[in-house]
């Protein structure tokens, strides 16, 4: 298994413009009070990653409860909204509408620091021996820059988008993508699923579905948050990345490995190429409890030391955002 570190220096505000994010959070709060006012949802009996039945309370956020798996330390929401409630949320949510309609998704900062490295990653990871037809699928597509970039790849014969957000449909048709709402078995050579794994009600079944949809040696590439990361471990409920009810699974490194291997995948790469852990802690230094040692690094050490520290986190897969590349065995 390989791991990748990315040396790219930028600030949180470059990828999360604060004005728009504040509005997004405000609308989410409104959604929650309108849509999730009564029922509790379903209690989850076992860790969605490793199936361990024992867990402890981790934190509450916006009246949603998160547990930490006693075995693999994956953090997950339980109880969680039923699939019906989630459907209602995604169809009625004002926050989602605001987020998806906003062009700030595609700002130059996000293009450069979020999407460009991801597109390079796809390009560098796909490898085909023979010249037979190759099918690509982006699972729950939501990012314009990814679709536009993939449309330029000449490796793929067919390109599908599974259940994209409606706002993406014009780009998809322009870029030669077919839109689908079911996956053919043993059909795809490459499937990508970016920033969706933390949202699945049952990530284990999704992983099985994707496994079945891949041809032999087909590749699955995902990105998601990681509970093993430094920023998440100290920010917990205060993390602006954790937005209930959207984020129900925050996988630990150990948990995600177990989940993918149990389904039959071989993990080729697992990386946490995040650049922001230390900067996020610095931005919230007055709102959170930090050990003196970390406070000292953040407040008193120079930029070089902080960069080295962030690189150390990446090397140890200890940053808060993960990428995984897996092959169907």
């Amino acid at each position, binding site marked *: 298994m390989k*791991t*990748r570190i990315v*040396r790219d*220096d930028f600030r949180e505000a470059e990828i999360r413009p604060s004005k728009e994010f504040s509005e997004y959070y405000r609308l989410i709060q409104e959604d929650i009070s309108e849509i999730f006012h009564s029922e509790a949802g379903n209690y989850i009996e076992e860790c969605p990653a490793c199936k361990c039945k024992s867990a402890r309370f981790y934190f509450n956020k916006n009246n949603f409860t998160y547990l930490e798996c006693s075995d693999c330390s994956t953090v997950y929401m339980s109880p969680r909204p039923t699939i019906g409630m989630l459907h209602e949320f995604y169809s009625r949510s004002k926050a989602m509408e605001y987020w998806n309609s906003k062009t700030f998704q595609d700002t130059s900062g996000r293009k450069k620091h979020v999407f460009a490295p991801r597109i390079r990653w796809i390009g560098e990871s796909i490898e085909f021996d023979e010249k037979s037809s190759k099918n690509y699928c982006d699972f729950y597509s939501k990012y314009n820059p990814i679709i536009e970039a993939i449309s330029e790849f000449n490796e793929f014969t067919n390109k599908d988008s599974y259940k994209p957000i409606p706002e993406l449909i014009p780009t998809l048709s322009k870029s030669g993508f077919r839109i689908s709402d079911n996956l053919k078995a043993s059909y795809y050579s490459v499937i990508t699923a970016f920033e969706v794994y933390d949202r699945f009600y049952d990530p284990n079944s999704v992983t099985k579905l994707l496994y079945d949809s891949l041809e032999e040696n087909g590749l699955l590439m995902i990105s998601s948050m990681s509970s093993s990361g430094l920023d998440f471990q100290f920010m917990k409920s205060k993390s602006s990345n954790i937005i209930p009810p959207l984020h129900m699974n925050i996988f630990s490194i150990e948990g995600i490995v177990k989940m993918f291997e149990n389904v039959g995948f071989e993990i080729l790469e697992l990386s946490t190429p995040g650049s922001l852990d230390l900067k996020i802690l610095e931005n919230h230094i007055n709102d959170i409890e930090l050990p003196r040692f970390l406070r000292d690094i953040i407040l008193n050490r120079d930029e070089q030391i902080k960069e080295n520290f962030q690189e150390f986190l990446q090397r140890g897969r200890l940053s808060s955002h993960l990428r995984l590349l897996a092959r169907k065995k």
Partner: protein
Amino acid sequence: MALRFGIIGFGKIGQLRKKIIEELELGKVLAISDPNYKQTHKDIFLTNNYHELLKQDIDAVIIATPNNITATAVIDALNSGKHVFSEKPPGRNLEEVIEIKKCSAKHPNLKLKFGFNHRAHYSVMEAKRIASSNRMGKLMWARAAYGKAGSLDFKEQWRSTKNIAGGGILLDQGIHMLDLLILFFGGFSEVKSFVDTTYWDIPLEDNAFAILKNSSDQYAVFHSSSTQWKHIFRLELFFSEGYMILNGLDTGSKSYGRESLIIGKRQFEDEVELLGNPSEEQIFFDDDRSWYFEMNDFSNAIINDKPIIKGSVDSAVDVMQLIDKIYSSDNSWVKRENEGEK
């Protein structure tokens, strides 16, 4: 189909090959030839004369002998109808390898593969794939360094004996880096070089420096050393649109550093603040399956009658030709060699 193997030369490497054959369930090792090895497996035919081994009912032989035996053992094995996997170097010099090639041509149905395992290291395969995808543009130049520190018994080893080893560090270790340069560049037509014994009291070179050029005006600077007190494996490949740096190598000793591949893209003039210091990615590889890939390739080639791609006799001749040019382009070295022979 389970293959029946014989192993000629059962030192560290021969034993490793046996372990891999068994782990991958490629077949059974039925015979071993080694002057020093004592019988431990009752069902294995043991001899100190490899000609006896070649009379056994086996499909393929692994040759892991000192360099002075390699070429004749390969030729004898082919002539007795066995498929052959031989460790590098494929011989002590170019002439020996050309003899092997002639012999191999007489046995088109027998597979012959040489152990250039560096091509099957993860960092190399990843770099090769990216280079082939053309995402980096045109390869312009490379800087390559591969070196080790020798060892306390360096002087006494067979590797340091002229008539056994045939060459020094260039042939022993540099050959791998040159093989990789050929992998990325296709080959080189012009060579300028210095070869010398700078520190060790041995009759062979302990350092070789070369500048290589090919007809596409691509350049490589190469250094092979056994006075590299801190072990190094580093290959910098610079393309029109970016660069890749292979640094460190996952070996048994771990002394070459954690195997990694750095990937960077050329920055453009509108990104002034990053000019000369672009953002880059580094991939770390935590295991080495190269030996396993090699044995698998060899076994697949035999069973499915597929040609040998990595480590073919042609690539062995290519790399030995390059080594020959590096030795012969240094007039002082040639003079010293000629005087030594008198």
